[in-house]
């Protein structure tokens, strides 16, 4: 085989990384290159430097160190039994690409993952070496996210967190039995134990730093994970339940959902031959309801049919339709916790309503200036000049709230 140029490797190893949904570069805290030797800063917010035609953000140089892999996870394009082209970056190549891209303001940093070669320890060791070279040799102060390998030596995970802003371990599937069938080399208990270990390391390091600024940082941007949607028979509610558990058990910053693409044989009966993007979108909405809107998994489940979220309506609206006795809500009186349960009303707009109504009774025209659209919320609210009357209880309200059918264009390939 002829020796591959860096540009060929980049094509192969970016291709291999595109199924990782996360590109977040936020939460690393303030850090600048001033007074240092190298480049890089993080200010907590994260920046999306470009958008690809799939509408996804490019914030980090997201690559695999190698797509050679000993494992045979059925849902993964890099599994040992797959016949994709293989490549492996040298440590120097990854370091140079990261720095060259960063200096031109293409990226916020590096998101490095890898197939498992030789052994989990060897692979993790190489990933850590790249991060260490960037941080120590080049004084790189941009963002680093390392995908960690749950079976690797805990000492390597401990070292990884000293260089990385974020660490992640993929939970892969919501269902333990599906995981052991589709990914025979992986085990849910091992993944959970690794996440638990990371949580304790992160919490302990935060505690130490609260006592002394000299204490080392450990993955200041926390840990995240990714779940594949559509590769097994898990229902949406199982997935949301798993997420609720992961947030509570391991203080995860984010759970990412990745629509499995393409559809596996077992689902050949489905008419769609593309990743279930709308399903993925609804799961993200449900995830937001869990984290920012005070919903429980059981409440989200009240709007779900047979454990699956409605594809035509967002999960907050389906919940509201199933709980109409709680509506209409008076925007001039209702507590914040109830305002954020109004379909179509977000956290920011609810905060602005609470701040404004102290001085001014809100009418519909006021609301339309505080939010992007009031179309969805009118059946569920009262304002100074508006009562929905019988609208809230109308039998065809669900149909009325559904967007025109062209949403499904998303699936057209």
């Amino acid at each position, binding site marked *: 085989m002829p020796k591959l140029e860096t540009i060929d490797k980049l094509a192969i190893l*970016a291709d291999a990384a595109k199924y990782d949904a996360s590109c977040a570069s936020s939460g690393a805290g303030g850090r600048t290159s001033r007074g240092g030797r190298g480049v890089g800063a993080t200010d907590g917010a994260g920046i999306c430097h470009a958008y690809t035609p799939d509408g996804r953000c490019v914030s980090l140089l997201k690559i695999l160190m190698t797509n050679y892999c000993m494992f045979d996870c059925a849902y993964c394009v890099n599994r040992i039994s797959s016949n994709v082209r293989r490549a492996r970056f040298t440590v120097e190549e990854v370091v140079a690409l990261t720095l060259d891209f960063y200096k031109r303001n293409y990226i916020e940093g590096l998101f490095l993952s890898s197939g498992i070669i030789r052994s989990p320890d060897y692979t993790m060791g190489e990933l850590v070496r790249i991060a260490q070279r960037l941080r120590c040799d080049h004084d790189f102060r941009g963002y680093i996210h390392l995908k960690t390998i749950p079976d690797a030596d805990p000492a390597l995970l401990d070292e990884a967190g000293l260089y990385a802003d974020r660490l992640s371990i993929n939970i892969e599937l919501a269902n333990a039995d599906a995981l052991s069938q589709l990914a025979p080399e992986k085990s849910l208990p091992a993944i959970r134990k690794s996440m638990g270990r990371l949580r304790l390391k992160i919490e302990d390091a935060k505690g130490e730093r609260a006592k002394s600024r000299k204490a080392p940082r450990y993955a200041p941007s926390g840990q995240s994970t990714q779940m594949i949607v559509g590769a097994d028979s898990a229902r949406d509610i199982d997935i949301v339940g798993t997420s609720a558990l992961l947030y509570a*058990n391991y203080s995860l910053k984010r759970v990412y959902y990745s629509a499995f693409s393409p559809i596996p044989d077992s689902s050949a009966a489905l008419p769609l031959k593309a990743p279930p993007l709308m399903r993925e979108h609804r799961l993200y909405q449900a995830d937001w309801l869990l984290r920012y809107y005070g919903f429980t998994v059981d409440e989200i489940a009240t709007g779900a049919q047979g454990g699956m979220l409605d594809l035509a309506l967002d999960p907050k609206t389906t919940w509201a339709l199933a709980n109409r006795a709680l509506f209409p809500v008076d925007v001039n009186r209702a507590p914040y916790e109830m305002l954020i349960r109004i379909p179509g009303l977000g956290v920011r707009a609810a905060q602005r309503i609470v701040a404004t109504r102290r001085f001014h009774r809100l009418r519909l025209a006021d609301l339309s200036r505080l939010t992007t659209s009031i179309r969805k919320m009118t059946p569920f609210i009262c304002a100074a000049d508006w009562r929905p009357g019988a609208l809230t209880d109308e039998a065809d309200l669900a149909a009325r709230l559904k967007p025109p059918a062209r949403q499904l264009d998303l699936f057209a390939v």
Partner: protein
Amino acid sequence: MRAITLTGETDTAGFYAAAAALAQQDVSARDVEWRTLARERDLFAAQDASLAPQRAADADRPPRAFIAATRVMLLHRDPARFALAYRLLHRLKREPNLLQIASDPDVARAGAMAKAVRRDVHKMKAFVRFRALRFSDDTEFFVSWFEPEHHVVAAVAPHFVDRFANMRWSILTPRASAHWDGAALRLAGGATRADAPGDDALEALWRTYFAHIFNPARLNVKAMQLQMPKKYWANLPEAAIIAPLVAGAPARARAMLAAAPRLVAARHACGDPGDRTGGALQGCRRCPLWRDATQAVAGEGPLDAALMIVGEQPGDREDIAGKPFVGPAGRLLDEALARAGVERAKAYVTNAVKHFKFEPRGKQRLHKTPAAAEIDACRHWLDGERALVKPKLILALGASALRGLGLRSASISSLRGSAHALPDATLIATVHPSYLLRLRDEDEKREQWRAFLADLRKAQEALQEL
């Protein structure tokens, strides 16, 4: 009609000084016309920005809240921004709460302008692309050509200093430029596209990355353009390949489908999960508590310990660490044992239930008391530990421990205070340390702590006698 001339588009200090003076004289917003000097002067205004506030005496500076609400929107390119901002200031005199009423049309419009400026700032941070110039002495200089929508160059420049403090660079835009020589930031007048380099060898790599991180099976051009509008494309090296990527996406997606992994039903039959672990504790499925927990937590301590301490169940920390009594209740127990003269290291410490029972609530886990059926299901493991360790004395902490030890109808209060005989050991019962943690009343807390210590001392005495 009064005409006020500001020294440039970013002369906010001049605006505030003039606006404060006008407001003091109660001049109506309709009677003021705002002008700015020609654009070449912008740079002087920008450079003088740090000196400018001295022109306004403290007394005639507008209120702090007004400055906070307008500082950003004044960078908007709309010439009407000064009139709008002054109208807000003038109205504030009669409507002191005005700035809190986000739904007011003027306040909402100013808010929308600020939002547009913030977005422009954010997009400039995102979409500036540097091209490298390499000199004969092998040093590099980085230059970018960018076209912001609003007057944001001076506001954004420090962001680039933060991340590229050890590079030398220039950001050129039509109305203003920022230059960093490695030590100082200099703001200057506008430039043209021709002043910046036309290419950079790295762009081929960047376009390759852009093309391959894109997933053609998820084509969504609308979402891309919402975040990266076409007006920015002219200065983005990757934008040139967007059209071919979009055109080629269906074919690439079909190729991906053809090469799709085939999910075989199951590669190997999955037997009872207990089989794989030889029926060991980690594979336990005797009750449903294993499902949500990280791991089963077995007892810990010497297998020939004379003392066995039995608690209720692992908590949040124990579930993660895989060890019993390492959380807050564990620390309290350690403290009490030390005071009573009991060496924890010599005791075998375990729980009646081996998995943590809890309810997820946001980022917290709320402890739930195990049900009788769960304690009974877990007796299998506790009985095994008792048979293995054969302790002389068992210290039971709380009601769940009693049930786990087979004392179904006994309560802590009925057993407390004296030793009892079990078939295999002597029993001393007391409360669980987490009970002490939950007490709110200070007197009650002190009293219960003393009683707890007394129970532990009794255990220590009994241990010495056995």
